[in-house]
């Protein structure tokens, strides 16, 4: 199982700050996971509509759309950070 975490307006549009999922077989990369997630609900679809405004961290390390997913435990999805 993978813990998904959402922050800022991604969290607000999806409507929850976290969910636990079984990683689907086709989600071999960050890009594929986002495609799969966008189909889960209208909120997910809206939050993830513009991929250029989405950033991802896999097990607390920044990832790209091309990052391979090898048994991740925690994936965070959020807007570009705005700093402190």
């Amino acid at each position: 199982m993978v813990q998904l975490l959402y922050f800022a307006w991604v969290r607000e549009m999806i409507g929850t700050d976290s969910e636990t999922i079984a990683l689907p077989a086709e989600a071999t990369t960050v890009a594929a996971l986002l495609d799969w997630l966008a189909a889960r609900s209208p909120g997910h679809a809206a939050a993830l509509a513009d991929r250029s405004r989405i950033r991802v961290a896999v097990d607390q390390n920044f990832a790209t759309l091309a990052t391979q997913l090898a048994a991740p435990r925690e994936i965070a999805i959020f807007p570009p950070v705005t700093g402190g």
Partner: protein
Amino acid sequence: MTLSAFGARLQVEPFDAAAEQAALLAGRTDLGAAVCFTGLVRADDGLAALTLEHYPAMTLAQMQAIADKAAARWPGVIGTVIHRHGRLLPGAPIVLVTTAAPHRADAFAAAQYLMDWLKTHAPFWKREEWADGTSKWVDAKASDNDAAAQWQATPAP
């Protein structure tokens, strides 16, 4: 020697800059320079409040990582980085970077390096509330990214 020359903390409550600096300087007579930077919430254009959201474990880990990087880049500099999160009103202190070093150039440079990173790359998301009741998430800024980029262009000392 402490384990790390720089400490990093995340907290909701205010910080005490004088106490943090005193802790750095305690028992030392080799430090000729102490710099303290405090960032405050500005009431620009009718801002009523600022809420900082963060990714608890990752934000703190990244703050400690950049602090360790500063320690490696400026040996002999010690410091403390404290960032607040949650809802803050105009005028409230939001971030503290305090450094101390034998000489002032290192103390200033390390503090500025840490602030440039914190203002750009630290995993925080800011939501602004306005006097008219509206609110919105802040977009990432180009000017802060430029300030952070200069540190990559400068050769390491």
